């Protein structure tokens, strides 16, 4: 009795599950005829129960799916539990839906008496997955199609998304950097502008927009870093060419100002004198005592015009050669010795001495003629502006700076100049700071131009009546 009771109870439980199941549930025989269908199925095909039960499942299927379902049904009747996803528009149903279908054979007394088919509607999940996938694809396409390089840094500074422009500009492979930290991938940048600005963006939660030099690839980058909850979205582009042409433009503009100044002052002065002297000579009697000095001065003035033009030509030809001539490795000691020897007579005449301390194997990268001009001009200046109060001593010392070329110091004990007054003007063309000595104000301008043309730098320090010191950084 209790067995029957239990059976009844279990039958009821099953019935309840069947009737109330939101999934569509069918019970089919081996020929595909529907023996039972739950209300969810009836609703899906919009048919009353009597028009469903007793008919084949095929009659609810579009033709192209019949073979598939027949095949799956066969598999179930062979004793397998069958699972598959399929998009179906049941005949009579308003739209196609995606179902996860499970077919379970019902075994009674060792024989399969039928198959339960459960259709779970997966349309919504499927669609939202598809939307996610599509959006991911779309984002990927966007990040790949923008011309900027783009990557994500998470809050631990690890690389997230990296587009192919990043790979190209920074010369990295995304699979090698994804998940690694910025510090790990570019340790040399940990003291640099990039690191500092990203830190600012993280700290202040503000967008950072800046230019930074990326040493490893010798590129100027224009960078925008947008902070978010996840980390930083970083866009950048290569602006090296722009930065270089701005520098070039700036330099050319400065040159132009300089040449305007030369024309206005240094060329105009002797021309004005010549004009005046011609006027004067026109009214002077040939026997006048002023006649000869006026003529001599006219000659001198025209020679001055010529000299300024030659100077300008010298400067312009240096500028022209910039970047054209290949630099070579030059033995520094040789060049300095040449300059020293060529001024040896003058040095001895004034009782001075030039001491050099240059490693015999020290090479610098540059141009032989420029290097000679630099040391010749610096030594000439030391001689010209020596102090009357003590014998001139010039020392030239050089040492290699590993990886950065060489540092050369040229120091004298001459009359010096007032740094506060002169400052960086000492390097300006035709700028002079001594009235007692004749000079064109050309030497230091040439020195600086030559040093910079070879990619070096020059600094000066001086104290009145103590001496002057030039520090050169050569490559």
């Amino acid at each position, binding site marked *: 009795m209790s067995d029957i009771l239990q059976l009844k109870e279990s039958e009821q439980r099953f019935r309840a599950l069947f009737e109330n199941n939101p999934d569509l549930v069918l019970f089919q025989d081996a020929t595909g005829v529907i023996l039972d269908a739950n209300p969810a199925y009836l609703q899906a095909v919009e048919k009353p129960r009597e028009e469903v039960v007793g008919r084949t499942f095929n009659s609810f299927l579009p033709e192209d799916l019949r073979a598939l379902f027949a095949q799956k049904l066969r598999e179930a009747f062979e004793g397998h539990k069958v699972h598959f996803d399929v998009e179906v528009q049941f005949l009579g149903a308003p739209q196609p839906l995606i179902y996860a279908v499970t077919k379970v054979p019902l075994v009674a007394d060792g024989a399969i008496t039928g198959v339960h088919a459960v259709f779970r509607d997966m349309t919504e999940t499927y669609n939202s997955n598809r939307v996610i996938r599509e959006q991911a694809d779309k984002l990927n396409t966007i990040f790949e199609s923008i011309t900027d390089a783009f990557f994500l840094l998470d809050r631990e500074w690890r690389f997230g998304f990296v587009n192919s422009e990043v790979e190209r500009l920074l010369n990295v492979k995304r699979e090698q950097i994804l998940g690694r930290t910025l510090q790990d991938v570019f340790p040399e940048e940990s003291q640099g502008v990039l690191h500092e600005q990203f830190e600012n963006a993280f700290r202040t939660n503000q967008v950072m927009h800046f230019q930074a030099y990326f040493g490893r690839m010798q590129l100027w980058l224009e960078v925008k870093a947008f902070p978010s909850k996840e980390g930083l979205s970083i866009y950048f582009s290569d602006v090296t060419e722009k930065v270089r042409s701005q520098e070039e433009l700036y330099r050319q503009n400065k040159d132009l100002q300089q040449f305007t100044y030369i024309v*206005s*002052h240094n060329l*105009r*002065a*002797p*021309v*004005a*004198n010549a*004009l*005046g*002297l011609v*006027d*004067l000579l026109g*009214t002077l009697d040939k026997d006048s005592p*002023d006649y000869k*000095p*006026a003529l001599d*001065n006219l000659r*001198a*003035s025209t020679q001055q015009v010529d000299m300024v033009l030659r100077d300008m030509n010298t400067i312009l030809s240096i500028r022209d050669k910039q970047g054209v001539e290949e630099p070579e490795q030059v033995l520094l000691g040789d060049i300095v010795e040449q300059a020293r020897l060529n001024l040896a007579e003058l040095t001895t005449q004034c009782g001075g001495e030039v001491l050099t301390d240059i490693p015999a194997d020290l090479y610098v990268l540059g141009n032989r003629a420029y290097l000679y001009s630099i040391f010749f001009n610096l030594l000439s200046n030391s001689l010209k502006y020596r102090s009357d109060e003590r014998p001139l001593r010039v020392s030239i010392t050089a040492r290699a700076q590993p990886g950065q070329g060489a540092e050369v110091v040229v120091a004298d004990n001459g009359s010096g100049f007032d740094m506060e007054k002169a400052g960086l003007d000492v390097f300006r063309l035709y700028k*002079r*700071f*001594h*009235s007692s000595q004749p000079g064109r104000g050309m030497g230091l301008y040439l020195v600086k131009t030559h040093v910079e043309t070879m990619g070096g730098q020059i600094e000066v320090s001086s104290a009145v009546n103590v001496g002057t010191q030039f520090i050169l950084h050569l490559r």
Partner: protein
Amino acid sequence: MDVLLIDDDTIGVFLTERLLKREGFTDSIASIPSAEEALAFLQNAEPHQLPHVIFLDLNMPLMDGWEFLEALRPLENRLLGRCHIYILTSSLAHTDLARIEQFPLVDGLINKPLDAAQIQAVRAQVEAALSAGQEVPASPADQRP
């Protein structure tokens, strides 16, 4: 009329001197080749030693013409009406002309080379100022005890 040339360019000084003489401007011409020396001279000069006209060059090493004029400011009262400064420059910079407005001592700017017409113009201007100054002193500092 006493004239002082302040110019480091010897050719310029030679020329200006000869032209002034040729035009009969004056025979009393002194020249000082640096602005510092000229400043020291003017600071220490007795009133009767002050020149009537100064031709000042602008482009000189160390102290240039503008710096000289700045350094002269404390003497302005003593010099106004007595010393007429003309800038005599080879420079063609347009900014110079605007800049002279800042210096009451400067009566004009002449581009080198000096010519006959300019010299006559300066003479007329200075003579007018001098005769006016004799009747009505330009400033109290001008009144000698």
